[in-house]
């Protein structure tokens, strides 16, 4: 999986439906990996992170059903990759929240622009998952 800044960069630069789907799929997977690394019951963010991980997996799985998703990951262009392993859980959470917001926006646009029903539904479901992650990580969730 790519780092959070890297997938964010890919997502921002994606210029076609397959590229958005591919980048978003990678972004959900990367978020899931990042969350898994931070799931420490001793921190106060444990519960929102556990629930956000479920939403990240749901978003990734929803996109896996999109007909326009390339069957193989697209080659990644060089990105502004920054290591985040040493960051605190608060910093990681903030970057994940920002990424989920971007994901939700790109997927909402993709759902609107996609021509096929399957792609529209997949993008809509994945966008909803992204919004859930954002709500959970910013303290505005249900």
């Amino acid at each position, binding site marked *: 999986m790519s780092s959070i800044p890297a997938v964010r960069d890919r997502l921002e630069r994606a210029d076609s439906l397959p590229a958005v789907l591919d980048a978003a799929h990678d972004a959900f997977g990367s978020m899931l990996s990042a969350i898994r690394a931070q799931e420490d019951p001793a*921190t106060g963010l444990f519960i929102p992170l556990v*629930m956000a991980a479920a939403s990240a997996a749901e978003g990734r799985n*929803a996109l896996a059903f999109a007909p326009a998703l390339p069957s193989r990951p697209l080659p990644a262009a060089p990105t502004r990759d920054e290591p985040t392993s040493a960051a605190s859980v608060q910093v990681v959470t903030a970057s994940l929240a920002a990424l989920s917001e971007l994901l939700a926006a790109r997927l909402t646009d993709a759902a609107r622009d996609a021509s096929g029903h399957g792609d529209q539904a997949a993008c809509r479901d994945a966008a909803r998952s992204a919004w859930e992650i954002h*709500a959970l990580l910013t303290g505005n969730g249900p």
Partner: protein
Amino acid sequence: MTSRATFGDFIRAAHWHLDPATTIHGPPGFRGSAEEVSRSLLRVIIVMRRYVEDMTVALPRQRQRPHSALPAWPRAAVPARGALASAAGFLNTQGAVSRWPAVPAVSPLARRLDAAAESLITGHDLLQTHFGMDRDGGRQHRSEWALIITSPIVIRALLAEFATLSCTIARQGANIALVGPHGRQDSAEAWRALNAACQWLWVLNASIQAAHHREPLSVADGELLRSIPANVAPPRRLPDGSESVTATCEGTITTAERLRHLAWDAAERARWSSAMSVTSMYQVAAANTVTSHNSEVLLRALAARTTHPGLGQISAHLSAAADAARRTRAAWLGTAHALDDVNTDAEGRVSRVAAETRDLALWTGRLSYANPDWTLASGPAQIARTPESLAPDPEQVPPVIAAVHQVSATLTRLARVELEQIRAAAQAGRILVPTRSLPSEFDIPRPFARAPQAHVERLLSHYREAAYASRQITAAIEPAAEATRAPSRTLTAAAAALSHGHLGAHEKDKVPNGHAGAAPDLDADDRPGPVERTLRQLGVDHPDVLRRGAEIDQAGSRLIIDAANELAPGRRRQSAAVLSRSAGAAQVVNHALASGDLRAAALLRRPGRPEREPPEPEP
């Protein structure tokens, strides 16, 4: 503690209607018509027979054994069934009776009996909600309670209820049958038949008393029977932030019970349901991770609250339960991680169980944390309730223990159901992996492929671990629930009922942690016999004289019972109906039967004579 109707509601109502102190049915002294009372008594007996028939269906292995080789309680069911048939036979002179009376009875005793029959019928219907029919016409379990209802522990508790009811009915029925002049000849016969039916109810009571003496019933057995709920899901509840701790406990318990109910239904549909999706599995695993986490917080607070010297080992048990909750959280989190690698053929649907596991996480969070508006998104500023705020008074500890006990039972159930669902779904080829995740040499022209067996096995092992760890919480809480008499201790009795498939001679000794409790007193008829009663009617109140009268009554009963049992099998003798033709003799026979000595049944039995069977009631 449940919002659903329970069997206890109806069996209590039956006892209440028959209680002479209950006056809504009219003055107990008014006699009414013998036919009317007989019809009402027959209604009660018919429904009691239905229960006993169900019991014998529930004990198929016992039915194959010779009567003398049966354990005490299944052995008691046989004469109980026979006694009911004999009693019904005496009341069968007017043909079939309707399930409900067409018009309210005139006689207060008939009204009592009709009301009791109605309660028993409704209680029977309640128990039947846990069963259905499969496609082959076989009996099918429809809830987690079905196995408990058919367990020997619940069956003996039900027999004990019938013993008490029979004794109460026989006492009142015989009283009214033997009092005053009989009037017309046909009426006199009807009253005598009613008395004979009551005599058989005493036989039923005696057979159950005998079983109780050999294998005493426990208080917990009766509590378990009475706690059986109707098989309907409790209504969904969500907190609004205004709840007290007590109300939050109730909401938690209702949600836990509701989830177990929904989980049972979901397990039946795993092979084909579109709601059996990885999305649902993720939701369940994530929410249960949170619920386990909250349970640990709660249990640590409870352990701190129960450190008083007078509370014994409760705190230690709760600390052990908190440790188990920590392991459960890790197990559910591991389950969620294992799900990262799989998918299902059903796209994105979330089952009701999955949606509502979040409810349980929310309720346990509201109970664990000080913030009344706590949500799953609440961030780092989560302050746990202090032990004192969780249970300001010691009597508020049991409801919190009950809540977390119910939660642990639900976590166990959910892990087992998920395990079964995944196993069934895997067999049906419904567990998938994305082909994007497979090495590039796999050229599969579809987005998903069937999950390799290793993936499935890894997933199943995580669910097994979650079930095991959740069960450890329950095991650690059980002694604390028992010691504090938390309402959830029926869960322990239910688990004991499920784990003791057979009734052995010393079964009670095998029930762990003292769950058996003290043996309750069954209703032994200690009414005065004819001599003592005559003395009292004479106005004698000297204790020594009354005691001597009671001793004469007891000696008379013993003499009659011994003599009846020593008669040779082929010896001609009078039937009970003939014996009871005079009111004086009937009172002596009744007193012997009411003594609870099962051998007194010999007074009623005539060698070689089949017992009459009553007709079924009209639909």
